[in-house]
């Protein structure tokens, strides 16, 4: 068995100024679902579009699939403008949120379907279908109907059906959202492994940020039809370029600061009258004046107020304390902003009870700066 045979045709995908407007529900006006999107997905890469519901991610996916026609802009798949190419001629595959298995066909026939409609020779259909079934460990249940197997198996049928036709691009529309948490994690890893082995260009849509982190080469954050930021999971997490991204991708604290000056990547700032240096402030850092310091909960450390004198940036009071064993989570109120603080391996240092007065130490190495009054949309 050789999975490499399924990977022959991976193509890159380019979206240029892609825009989609719908008539609004009451029929009176228009709603812009996707707004002037530009995106390049390289061959063999897995890109995830991540965003809250209604952000336009599914519409983007459906435009690439050909189920929706763009209002304006273009889509290129493998360098070919697909505007005039119907969905069935685009050489794509898609794994649907509901799996969309054919209820009246056996598992074998579900998987063979795409090959049959291409009218391939019978021998080839048989050979490829069986290979896909083996790959997905479905061989033993090939003759059953989709309603007779478990959820995880149904998911694998959908995947087998999608890859057997050797698509140039594989589209995923929240494929794991119907599974329970444990199975979801398992399938997520399987899916990523498979995608890497086969090297199929993939576009994955989800609203689950940990799923996006786990499987993506790059992540696209969308909101209200606009792309907010594109980057590797690490870039997105470590260098969020807007408050929305910082907040949506993981958890973030926003501390109000004054920027005193920028020197190269570093910024000198003042918090509550104390001066600090942020070594890598990020591209979005304002050159002067009010700013927000983005600090992840794990980059904040608590000290007893007594031992914090001089080193602590902020003083606060524990409002809420949750103990997870591996993590202790604190909600702390300060004069500047409410903060969420997570301490890993809490037993190795101090553990504070609710009501305790604490000093808060910021790890400025991983902190970034954002403009204080952020505009809602970047046009």
């Amino acid at each position, binding site marked *: 068995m050789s999975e490499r045979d399924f990977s022959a045709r991976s193509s890159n995908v380019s979206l240029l100024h892609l825009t989609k*407007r719908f*008539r609004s529900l009451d*029929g009176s006006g*228009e709603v812009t679902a996707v707004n002037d999107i530009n995106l390049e997905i390289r061959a063999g890469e897995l890109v995830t579009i991540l965003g809250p519901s209604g952000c336009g991610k599914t519409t983007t996916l459906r435009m690439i*699939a*050909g*189920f929706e*026609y763009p*209002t304006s802009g273009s889509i290129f798949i493998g360098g070919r403008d697909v505007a*005039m190419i*119907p*969905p*069935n*001629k*685009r050489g*794509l*595959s*898609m794994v*649907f*949120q*509901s*799996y*969309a*298995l*054919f*209820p*009246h*066909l056996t598992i074998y026939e579900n998987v063979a*379907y*795409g090959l049959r*409609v*291409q009218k391939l020779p019978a021998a080839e259909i048989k050979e490829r279908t069986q290979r896909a079934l083996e790959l997905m460990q479905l061989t033993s*249940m090939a003759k*059953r*109907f*989709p*309603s*007779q*197997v*478990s*959820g995880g*198996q*149904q998911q694998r049928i959908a995947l087998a*059906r*999608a890859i057997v*036709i050797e698509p140039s691009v594989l*589209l995923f529309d929240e494929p794991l959202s*119907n599974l329970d948490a444990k199975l979801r994690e398992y399938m997520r890893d399987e899916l990523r492994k498979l995608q890497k082995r086969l090297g199929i260009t993939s576009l994955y849509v989800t609203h689950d940020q940990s799923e996006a982190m786990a499987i993506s080469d790059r992540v696209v954050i969308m909101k209200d039809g606009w792309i907010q930021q594109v980057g590797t999971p690490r870039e997105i997490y470590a260098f969020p370029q807007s408050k929305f991204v910082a907040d949506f991708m993981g958890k973030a604290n926003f501390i109000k600061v004054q920027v005193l000056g920028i020197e190269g990547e570093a910024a000198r700032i003042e918090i509550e009258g104390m001066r600090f240096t942020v070594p890598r402030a990020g591209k979005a850092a304002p050159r002067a004046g009010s700013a927000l310091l983005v600090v992840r909960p794990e980059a904040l450390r608590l000290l007893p107020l007594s031992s914090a004198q001089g080193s602590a940036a902020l003083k606060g009071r524990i409002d809420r304390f949750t103990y997870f064993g591996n993590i202790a989570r604190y909600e702390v109120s300060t004069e500047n902003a409410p903060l969420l603080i997570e301490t890993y391996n809490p037993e190795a240092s101090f553990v504070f009870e609710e009501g305790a007065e604490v000093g808060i130490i910021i790890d400025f190495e991983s902190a970034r700066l954002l403009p204080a009054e952020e505009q809602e949309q970047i046009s």
Partner: protein
Amino acid sequence: MRENTRLSVAHLVRDPVLLFLVILVFTGLFLFILLPLYKIFSYSITTNEGKLSFQAAWDILRSRTYLQPLKNSMLLGLTTGILATIIGYVFAYALTRVDMPLKGFFKTIATIPIISPPFILSLSMIFLFGRNGLITNKLLGMEDSNVYGMHSLVVVQTISFFPIAYLTLTGTLAKLNPAVEDAALNLGASRGRIFRTVTLPLSVPGILSSFLLVFIQSMEDFSNPAVISGNFSTLAVEAYRTITGMYDMRGGSLMALMLLAPTLIAYVLQKYWLSGKSFVTVTGKPTTSRRQSRDPKLMWPLFAFCMLVSLTIILFYGTVLVGAFVKIWGINFSFTWAHFKYVMTLGWTPLRNSVVLALASTPIAGLLGMIIAFLVVRKEFPGKRAMEFISMLTFAVPGTVVGIGYILAFNGKPFMWTGSAFLLIMAFTFRNMPVGIESGTSTLIQIDRSIEEASTILGATGAVTFRRISLPMLKQAFFSGLVYSFVRAMTAVSAVIFLISPRWNLATISIFSLFESSKYSDAAAYIVVMIVIIIVVIGGLNLLVGRLGNSGTVSSGGSGERA
């Protein structure tokens, strides 16, 4: 708005098969629905000299003779519609959800009255409950029972039309995702509560389309009221008599066209009610097959109900069957084959014609019905609403007027089709496909469109997707559409009065004529033979449709347990 029209036009251009289908369907609808209706309407408001005149229309409106019949028709339609839908629903529910004995028997019995050739149930009614009736007179000794009037009409029509409701609702209930009901059951809800809060609300599209179909059929029914309505006059019959008894074709046509109003209102209300609601229960995330209830507290009452209805049906049809084998129905009950000999010799040609034409129109009506349902539910194109609307029109107009409209439209250049088999086939097709459209539509809105998209993205063209994915999933609806068009084609009376020709005489017209000559037993024998033919054809259709692919979610095939 304009943006979207432009987009949907672009959509059409990009999908040549869709474009072809849309053009084909619209051409058909225009030729065989709009043109005849337009012709009859313009005829009604034109004088013999070809001048525009609203005199006939004004006469009719002023005379108000239409008012009482119109009220009667609506009352009848509502009563029958509600009763038939309730009975149909109980049957469909019992047969899809409850594990009870004699299911096969009930299934067969419930479909038999679809095959109600004209007059025959009314005739049974008279023979059973009339002044000389077997039950009223011979059994109960009543001298003066009154069998004529609305009460009999309601009984006869409910028996005749509840199978449409049953078939439509079976499709709906079978497609209803059992997981939804199971989920409710797991949440601790009682069966009764599930029924009220889950099953019933989700089957609303089926209920509404059943009601609509029965309502329309009841309103435009000609043959039953013609025989048994007594002094309770309905608009369809009144229109017919105005044309044939008063020689007033203009007035009669206008009266018949009036029937469109309540029908269209019911139709629009139904669409309005359904719009914006989601009834998707087949998502393509497959669900395990349904466990049927064995609760005796549910089963026995349902069983008793089904039995009662079935026995009534058997009583009515049994009367016909007996009638076909006795010397003189109602007078001399000695056994004879003579009536069947008559059917097989003198009556054979019209019967053969009926079968040939009905067989020809059935696949066209069935497929066209599914295609229209598919286009309307799944595709975006300009004129979509119009297509849906127009396709229901001829169903609602009394046959008499459709027939006259067809002659007016197709008896001259450029369409010289009168007297041809083609025209009869088209009349059957376009008049009978709405049942398919309705059941197709209500099934399709239950099926997640991503199943079809999955097929598309795997490389299938629209036609392939339709044939290999949609149609098999629409099996039940397709089947009802086929059965219904066949039966309606076989049993049509009022529409074909004006379309038959010496070459293409039809069985129903012969039955009518036998009936008028008091040759009841010959008519009964005719009907028995007709029923046998129809049952054979339905069996054949069942086999054919069954080969469309085995559906994993259709409840009837015990498809195994949870894996």
